């Protein structure tokens, strides 16, 4: 059976790449602390020595569009080109090519379908910064094969929050049952409170620091019941109009289960709070 060596749930911030690679004279004043936090977080993945990364994220209206919108999709391709012109334009993100792991993709699709999730799939998927930001922060050498898992957190109607949790639980179970001795890490990125294109955007903190505190506690403590009781599809509009990205954190809580995170850290930035969580299902040195 595969060895699930680490579960990482974090925010994805497309400004990190530019902030961390700019020459010192043009770096923002928060960049050094941000780099320190990310470097420490990266070590939580490195020490787990993974061989395959299952990457959970959400396409930001790049390849997936309203004419044909999947709710949960798994990529199955030998390679994934990554990042788009408008991400290069706005964030300075580089073009990347990631290797795929088709065997694990095929397994997850077959077993997921048989377990009651009618998953969409893609044989030619260009992934965006929801996948590449955590590559840049946690595995910048981009050397491991990936399985991209996309969720719809942008285009209503969305599945109910418990469905994201259930899908996370299923992903974990399937990977732990995969008849392969590979070392697998699951890395998912979402958002805490976030406003995009609304009156609360780009403030000195995230739009709802109180929500952020509650959300960080739910995640850090593995409090799935608390998170499910505390949010709904309707209530997630209130902390900020892009806060449905928290559903990807809820998916990752489903992966991690009702246990405290082995590593939890946050960074209060303008516009949004960064958050970094890692679990080691079999211990940090498994």
């Amino acid at each position, binding site marked *: 059976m595969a060895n699930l060596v680490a579960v990482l749930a974090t925010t994805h911030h497309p400004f990190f790449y530019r902030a961390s690679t700019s020459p010192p004279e043009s770096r923002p004043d928060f960049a050094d602390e941000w780099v320190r936090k990310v470097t420490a977080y990266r070590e939580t993945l490195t020490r787990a020595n993974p061989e395959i990364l299952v990457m959970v994220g959400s396409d930001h209206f790049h390849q997936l*569009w309203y*004419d044909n919108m999947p709710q949960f999709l798994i990529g199955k391709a030998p390679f994934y080109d990554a990042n*788009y012109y408008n991400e290069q334009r706005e964030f300075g993100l580089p073009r990347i090519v990631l290797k795929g792991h088709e065997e694990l993709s095929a397994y997850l699709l077959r077993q997921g379908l048989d377990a009651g999730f009618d998953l969409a799939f893609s044989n030619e998927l260009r992934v965006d910064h929801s996948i590449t930001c955590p590559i840049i922060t946690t595995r910048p050498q981009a050397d491991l094969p990936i399985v991209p898992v996309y969720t719809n957190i942008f285009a*209503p109607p969305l599945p109910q929050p418990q469905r994201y949790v259930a899908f996370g639980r299923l992903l974990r179970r399937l990977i732990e049952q995969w008849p392969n001795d590979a070392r697998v890490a699951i890395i998912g990125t979402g958002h805490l409170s976030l406003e995009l*294109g609304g009156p609360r*955007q*780009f403030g000195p903190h995230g739009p709802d620091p109180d929500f952020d505190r509650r959300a960080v506690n739910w995640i850090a403590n593995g409090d799935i019941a608390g998170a499910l009781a505390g949010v709904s599809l309707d209530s997630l509009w209130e902390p900020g*109009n892009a806060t449905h990205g928290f559903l990807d954190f809820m998916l990752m809580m489903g992966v991690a289960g009702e246990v405290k995170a082995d590593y939890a850290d946050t960074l209060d930035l303008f516009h949004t709070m960064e958050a970094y969580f890692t679990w080691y299902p079999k211990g940090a040195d498994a």
Partner: protein
Amino acid sequence: MSKYLLNKFLFSIDRDPALVERYRADPRGTVTWWETERANIVLNLPEMERSTWLRFADDEREALATHNYVKLFELGAHPFLTLTLFIALFERDYPEPLGFQLEYARKLQHWSLPYPDITT
């Protein structure tokens, strides 16, 4: 209401560098051309298999033709699409970092929850 078509316009312009510049320089002309020539093209189909029924409501067309992102918000265009495209259009005109984004937020300050429904 054709929120889907508003979003399709924003999406189609945003992903094409030449169209971003064309829309910045000539918003009304670009909207007229796009509605006539491109609105009914299904993005994943050959052009000959186009739709026959998509058109803007008058207030939608006018909002796009005047770069009126406040009105687009009110009409229920997806705010992520509007923000991303309008940053590409106008961020360059502001000397301070985030200058445009903060003005954008200020111009929407009259809105409180609930915001306009973005469901298509």
